[in-house]
């Protein structure tokens, strides 16, 4: 707060006059810097309606640095002139004998505050020579306010326990808060945005009655990842370029033998109404350990297990990491999270799959869906799910779905009239869209931008647009 002395002096001045005072005049008369008076005005304003101050601006002319020098020592010309000795150059004799230093005189007028005596043209000329400059001075015209008083009561900043105890808060005046300022950031931890979205998807599945699958097994055998899904051994996805293979432990060593034989047979010879792929199925390929390329490997294990007991309908889901040895770019990493839903029941139809997908995506806020025929080695029919993007005004792909093939389900031992429908999507893509992230590395992995993590809002709904 400004010096109370100044405040009081100012108030006294204001009291004496009826129509008010100019802050600049007060400063001059008190011999203090104008800014001190401005500070006092602001302080008094903060106290409430003690004074009212109206901002005024006036223009006046001031000498520049060079101008000041000229005013003191004469114009450059006159200084040259005075420097030439009397007996000096012959040329000087040709010139005038004495000069009238008008520039200096004009500047001196301005310096003394009599700039009005100069003509506008003269001032502009001096301004061009950078000897004068026009300065705008802001000052306050101060008048009494409604609750004017010459004494200042000190304002309290905060309510204290003592005030509450003594009750003297009733007499105190409190400094108003500045509601424009930001509050103090709370000292807290933060959840990762991708995990926040995962929590929401998990919640949606649970709300729909889906049981979570145990997907905590990143290492899988090719058998469960591919063969059990009726994905042929020459399929490009099983290439070194697409899948991470392990050198240690290189092979899985234990399989349900009866089931393995049935899988082998359906691939190489067919059966269960299928022609099969008619190729030489090799156990060596099936034994190869890999980092699972989809969580459907776990779904296969779960469905096989389900087939080993009396069949009851199930709804399963999982959200977990999968790994692809693919080319990396701004939206693709070697590992990402797959969201997967599976329903197994008697007599499920393609219409049922669409219905479930409709319910699932409605929970995400996506209601306009349509389906495109697609191909997937282990589902038939297979459908790509498209949603209408209101922003882009076009249909964009949001997921993949299908009905598991009989060649996958029947060798497991599931009853023939049981259908299994499933769908999947990635967790990263909707998250990137929700949080407006363009480079996936800013979201996942150690290069994450922690500020982004700190600032990311809660995920009430997963994104309404993919």
């Amino acid at each position, binding site marked *: 707060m400004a010096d109370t002395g100044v405040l009081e002096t100012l108030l006294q001045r204001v009291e004496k006059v009826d129509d008010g005072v100019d802050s600049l005049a007060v400063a001059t008369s008190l011999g203090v810097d104008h800014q001190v008076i401005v500070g006092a005005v602001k302080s008094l304003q903060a106290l409430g309606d003690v004074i009212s101050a109206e901002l005024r601006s006036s223009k006046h002319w001031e000498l520049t640095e060079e101008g000041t020098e000229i005013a003191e020592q004469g114009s450059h010309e006159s200084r040259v002139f005075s420097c030439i000795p009397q007996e000096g150059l012959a040329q000087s004799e040709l010139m005038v004998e004495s000069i009238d230093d008008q520039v200096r005189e004009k500047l001196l007028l301005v310096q003394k505050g009599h700039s009005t005596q100069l003509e506008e043209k003269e001032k502009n000329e001096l301004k061009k020579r950078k000897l004068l400059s026009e300065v705008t001075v802001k000052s306050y015209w101060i008048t009494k306010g409604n609750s004017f008083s010459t004494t200042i009561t000190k304002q309290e900043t905060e309510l204290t326990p003592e005030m509450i105890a003594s009750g003297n808060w009733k007499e105190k005046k409190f400094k108003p808060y500045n509601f424009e300022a930001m509050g103090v950031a709370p000292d*807290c*931890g933060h959840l990762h945005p991708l*995990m926040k979205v995962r929590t929401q998807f*998990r919640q949606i599945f*649970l*709300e729909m*009655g889906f*049981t*979570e*699958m*145990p*997907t905590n*097994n*990143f290492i899988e*055998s090719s058998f469960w990842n591919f063969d059990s899904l009726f994905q042929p051994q*020459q399929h*490009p996805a099983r290439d070194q370029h697409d899948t*991470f293979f*392990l*050198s240690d*432990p290189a092979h*899985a*060593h234990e*399989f*349900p*033998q*009866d089931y393995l034989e*049935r899988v082998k047979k359906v691939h190489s010879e067919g059966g*269960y109404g299928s*022609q099969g792929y008619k190729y030489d199925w090799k156990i060596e390929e099936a034994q190869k*350990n890999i980092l699972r390329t989809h969580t459907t490997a776990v779904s296969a*294990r*779960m469905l096989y297990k389900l*087939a*080993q*007991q009396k069949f009851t*309908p*199930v*709804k399963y889901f999982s959200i977990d990491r999968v790994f692809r*040895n693919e080319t990396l770019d701004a939206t693709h*990493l070697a*590992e990402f999270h797959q969201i997967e839903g599976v*329903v197994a029941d008697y007599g499920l*139809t*393609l219409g049922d799959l*669409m*219905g*479930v997908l409709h319910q699932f995506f409605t929970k995400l806020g996506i209601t306009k869906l*349509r389906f*495109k*025929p697609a191909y997937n080695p282990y589902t038939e*029919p297979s459908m790509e799910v498209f949603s209408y993007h209101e922003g882009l005004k076009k249909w964009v792909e949001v997921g993949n779905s299908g*009905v598991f093939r*009989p060649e996958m389900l*029947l*060798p497991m031992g599931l009853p023939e009239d049981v259908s299994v429908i499933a769908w999947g999507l990635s967790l990263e893509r909707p998250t990137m869209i929700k949080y407006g992230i363009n480079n996936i590395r800013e979201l996942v992995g*150690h*290069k994450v931008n*922690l*500020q982004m993590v700190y600032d990311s809002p809660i995920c009430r709904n997963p994104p309404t647009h993919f």
Partner: protein
Amino acid sequence: MPTVGVKRDLLFKALGRSYTDEEFDELCFEFGLELDEITSEKEIISREQGDTKASGASDVILYKIDVPANRYDLLCLEGLVRGLQVFKNKLEVPRYKRVSPLSGEPQKLIITKETEAVRPHAVAAVLRNITFTQERYDSFIELQEKLHQNICRKRSLVAIGTHDLDTISGPFTYTAKRPGDISFKPLNQTKEYTATQLMSLYKTDSHLRHYLHIIEDKPLYPVIYDSNGVVLSMPPIINGDHSKISLKTKNVFIECTATDQTKAKTVLDMMVTMFSEYCAQPFTVEEAEVVYPDGKTCIYPELAYRKEKLSGKFINQKVGINESTEKIAHLLTRMCLLSQATGAGDEIEVEIPPTRSDIIHACDIMEDAAIAYGFNNITRTTPRTYTVANQFPLNKLTELLRQDLAAAGFTEALNFALCSQEDIAEKLGKKISEMRAVHISNPKTAEFQVARTTLLPGLLKTIAANRKMPLPLKLFEISDVVLKDETKDVGARNSRRFCAVYYNKSPGFEVIHGLLDRTMQLLEVKPARGEGYHIQTADDSTFFPGRCADIFVRGKNVGRLGVLHPDVINRFELTMPCSALEMDIEPFLGHTAETPLTRDVPMKEVIKHRFPTRDESQQSAHSRLTSTKTVFGDVSTQVGLEALSDFLADKSYIEGFVASQADMIVFDAIPSPPSPTLCHLWRWYNHINSFQTDRARLPSAKSRYVLPATPLATPNDASDEEDIDLFGSDDEAESAEVARIKEQRLAEYAAKKSKKPALIAKSSILLDVKPWDDETDMSKLEECVRSVSMDGLLWGQSKLVPVGYGIKKLQIGCVVEDDKVGTDMLEEAITAFEEYVQSVDVAAFNKI
């Protein structure tokens, strides 16, 4: 998904109308294609090589269309148009015919046995009187390329060669020769090369070099000659220049050599069905004869039509529609599957043409009916599947903990499960050989060498990437690491960890320690030795000497915390002190009300399904088995022994092909040597008996064998239960009265038992026996445990289960007769070996 580029105007001309881009996109969508891009040659060149190169290139509009990976019949303009026209009811599906040549013998391709080791299969056909235009010719070449890239798996499975038949004369010989002995002028070259020279010539060829590896290291290379010794091709690399086809070519000889016979036939069928359209007799293909090394001959192309019968009900039920049989037959016909209602009920006969190699099951036919019906015309329904949701307990715990750890002021990080060896070893001051890490054989960069065995490096790297953020940095992660584990079918398992770091100007051990205390509070573990948690000094090269401690929970080491070693801090390019905590969270799972799912699958099937492919006679004694735990019934009864004998009728051992602990468990359960009348059992019993001296060395059982009592107790038998003295008093001064009552009860019991000999209440118990530390000799410990013997106690299989930081617990199963053995007796007996055993817990208790 393969992409086919077709000229828009040619396509529209062939379709007989033009479409707007949107209309055509819509048509594609409905049919299962995707109009991926609308472009021109000019645009492609200017995008790939710059505008200057593109000037003068054609700006004819191209449609790039994505085709499903199994639809080889849509990989060229001809096939696409045929498919779409039939779909739009504008064309009847053509019938492809194989014909004999008008004059004389068919062309012959003779396969010699030398090809066997390199590329044993070949098929051939002739397109007679074909008329090429520039567009047709381009499409013909392009289709070969598309087939090579897709079904042919980059020529490794099949390679196609097409030749001007008028420049060569049959019979043709497909043989294999030493590379030095093959010499010819290859396509578009001016002079002859030997195969050896060609292989080095094409090393730098941007296209052909990708195929060299297929035969490169073989002693003999495949080659096809005509009767005059002219080289047609050296598959799968290059054709000869002599027989190259041109716009003027009238008769085309097509050969496909392969390592996969089925695919070769399919590829040949695709080539001829697509382009026989341009023959003088459209859709006819002239046959060729292939002579095998054994003298057998075959006529190609197969052009096989297959018929399948299915019911309209099947389609209606699977799709969820209700259409007449005739309508369904019509829908299928629109998908190039000529179909008609047979009139027998709702039966439909579907003819699968040679172009539809993707149809291998009735479900493929069903999908086509659904596509023709229109996926988006199907009514969306809600299945009535009633289920109750369960969370995976480990994930539930993780979710709950994450929330509270964030509330404790720590920020969640999310790091990759894959990393470099250096990250988990050298940088932490450890050796990679000491890590139980899983190694990747084909990493493209060092970032994917191993699966992480610890979460710490990820968090330290996160800090390093965020050094500009204000201090302190407090991070945590709860996620999986991967450890090798021999007990798992794949040899590895995930382990869920919680890791936290504190990075500031001072080490802040107290902050990390405080977080541990808070975590334990959340997990309801009190600070105390024994039943609670405590920390004690440990030595670890990752941490600053003397500033590291192990975390013990209920006597088990679950993790470690401390101040990081300055070398570790430096190696992660950090500058400030840092303290860290990492621990397993799986030990805190405890019991949940929900039955947790596991993905561990039974290795032995006990429910025998009636598989249509199975021989009915194989249904054996298996069908009596009812669950994973009841195996043969009570082997102390005659019925049980008979079942076991039946089981052993065609087996030497209980499981697999060598004697194992499974045999021992069953052996032990048989009270006395069986009678020789049960001949299979008797044989097996004597055989297993011979292993008794070194039974411990037999491999462990693959399945759990628990030997049950046969019939289950009925409610009237509940009185039996009351007799069980759960807290078996060991008061030695038993009063005479008590003794009398006991004797009386025993007598009653014996009487009951004689009436129902099979009824003995038994339980299967799984015990966790924990050692004092990682230096405890576990085999000694097991020996001690197994030395406990009581009447009615039968030890089963055991395994060592790692609990973290090198400590393993012994998990051992046993079967007890409830009347004779109680868990308290067992625990008491085992904990008596206090030199080895720290504690004994009952991990599972199941009444049999």
